């Protein structure tokens, strides 16, 4: 502690160099924190996947719908206990504009039976079932938008078959709470409405986006997936069935690949920053040869001299890290406002700088600082006083 003023004064002397190193460091850590948060948001969804639910979609792509007639045939496969429907509606206040987007799905009643993690009061669920235009919204949506039971709002889809020349009108009939205890990770910003309504509005042109197939025994997931896909092997619309986790994983694999790429870039940046910081430190130590000789002459043990340099270097890292955390929490808070990236992360709940990510980022900054100071500190540790003085 008594050496701290000494260290800080050194950092302050060459404030240009210190400052630019800190900024470089903070950009690196900022990238780390933001990317980790992005990846966390993307993988978050996977954790809440149910093991006993299969998702069936069109074999070619989610873009294509499946025939309604499949439902009965799927239900007839042994081991299948329930079949539900969920269509990604892609509705927003203005079509294609995702500024205040929330995920919305057209579902059937069976779907609700299969997902007990959306807790809905029985009377509200009753009211929802009785209203063709009724919808269920997350508590968070209700609070954020000020939508209460009985309120109406409109959404328009950007998906061509669902574009009918006028917006869909919905009445809030139920508000769900996510069952965080038994189903941690339940998404808490969704909206559901009747598939019937979608079917009607599109003049019966809407097919089925995904079938949700509940099975009795999760261990049979593979066998049943194969069995149901085999049913439609020779149909026009071939199917692809997988567990909910796999479905979501596939859904985010694009984002995952992006994360991988970004991580690789992050690693390269980190390495660059290590070199930048190491350069700063070795410059600082080289121009301080005489000073190091003086400290040693005064009786400072070599280990202490090394410690001072490492601490200075770690302080560079810590300052960069602190700046980065500030920037990150600011940026992550505004991530949803960005074009493109915003669309990707919008809909993920709890977007923010997680304490663990922050801790990791800060730790990385300090570690980078220490690492960068290691060589110059070791050289100072080893250098003999007489050599330092002679070459100064």
């Amino acid at each position, binding site marked *: 502690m*008594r050496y701290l003023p000494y260290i800080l004064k050194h950092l302050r002397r060459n404030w240009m160099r210190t400052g630019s190193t800190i900024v470089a460091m903070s950009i690196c850590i900022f990238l780390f924190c933001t990317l980790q948060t992005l990846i966390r948001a993307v993988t978050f969804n996977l954790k809440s996947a149910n093991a006993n639910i299969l998702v069936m979609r069109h074999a070619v792509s989610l873009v294509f719908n499946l025939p309604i007639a499949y439902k009965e045939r799927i239900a007839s496969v042994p081991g299948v206990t329930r079949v539900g429907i969920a269509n990604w509606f892609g509705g927003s206040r203005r079509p294609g504009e995702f500024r205040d987007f929330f995920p919305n799905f057209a579902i059937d009643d069976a779907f609700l039976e299969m997902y007990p993690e959306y807790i809905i009061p029985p009377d509200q669920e009753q009211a929802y079932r009785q209203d063709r235009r009724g919808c269920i919204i997350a508590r968070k949506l209700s609070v954020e938008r000020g939508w209460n039971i009985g309120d109406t709002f409109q959404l328009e889809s950007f998906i061509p078959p669902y574009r009918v020349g006028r917006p869909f009108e919905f009445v809030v009939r139920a508000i769900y709470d996510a069952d965080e205890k038994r189903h941690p990770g339940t998404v808490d910003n969704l909206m559901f409405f009747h598939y019937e309504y979608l079917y009607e509005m599109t003049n019966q042109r809407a097919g089925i986006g995904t079938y949700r197939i509940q099975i009795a025994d999760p261990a049979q997931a593979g066998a049943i997936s194969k069995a149901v896909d085999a049913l439609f092997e020779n149909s026009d619309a071939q199917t692809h069935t997988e567990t909910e986790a796999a479905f979501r994983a596939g859904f985010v694999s694009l984002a995952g690949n992006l994360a991988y790429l970004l991580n690789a870039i992050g690693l390269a940046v980190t390495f660059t920053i290590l070199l930048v910081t190491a350069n700063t430190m070795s410059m600082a130590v080289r121009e301080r040869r005489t000073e190091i000789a003086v400290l040693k002459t*005064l009786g400072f043990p070599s280990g202490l001299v090394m410690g001072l340099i490492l601490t200075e270097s770690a302080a560079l890292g810590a300052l960069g890290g602190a700046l980065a955390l500030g920037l990150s929490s600011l940026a992550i808070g505004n991530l949803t406002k960005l074009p493109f990236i915003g669309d990707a992360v919008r809909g993920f709940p709890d977007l923010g700088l997680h304490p663990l990510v922050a801790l990791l980022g800060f730790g990385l900054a300090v570690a980078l600082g220490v690492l960068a100071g290691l060589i110059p500190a070791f050289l100072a540790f080893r250098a003999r*006083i007489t050599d330092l003085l002679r070459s100064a």
Partner: protein
Amino acid sequence: MAIVDIEGVRKVYHRDSQEITVLDGINLRVPEGEFVALMGPSGSGKTTLLNLIAGIDRPTSGRVMVAGTDLSLLSEGALASWRSHNVGFIFQFYNLIPVLTAVENVELPLLLVRMSKAQRRERALTALRVVGLADRALHYPRQLSGGQEQRVAIARAIVTDPKVLVADEPTGDLDARSAQEILELMETLNKQFRKTIVMVTHDPRAAERAHVQRHLDKGVLTA
């Protein structure tokens, strides 16, 4: 008993395959309280000898006893600790730490000693008073003249109250008047504070201040 007792000291450097004998069988005894001037042509080994006395370098062979300790018996760490208690080093170019104020520079050796912040500051200010610079305590080295910087450096050398002061051309970079002041200060330290001083110098007038003058030539003490 001599506070500095050097016997049969040789210092040999190896450059490429060549052997360079810088000190060749030095015997030197300095009684406690003495003020010795070490003179000689450039390259004769004065700094090398001074470094041996100060315990910042080791001889190739021979014995260096200072303040009752055989320095060859000490490990690097023990030697560092010994230096902090027993010698004060004064450099030609002052070697103050530019980012620290005068008083912080003087405090530096005290950081190694267990004492409170206030005590440390008090001791440093006392040392600055001895060299007549108490009013410049908060100035940075670049705000001081060369002579003032050297006086701060002397305060730093005496703040731990070592028995021996070694000075390598302490006036070598100063104008005549400042040099005069520094020499007077060193005389005071010797007379009033009973410091043993070994001073390397090229300047005959500086050497006159000392009680004893020793001459080094090609690694051998000649007088």
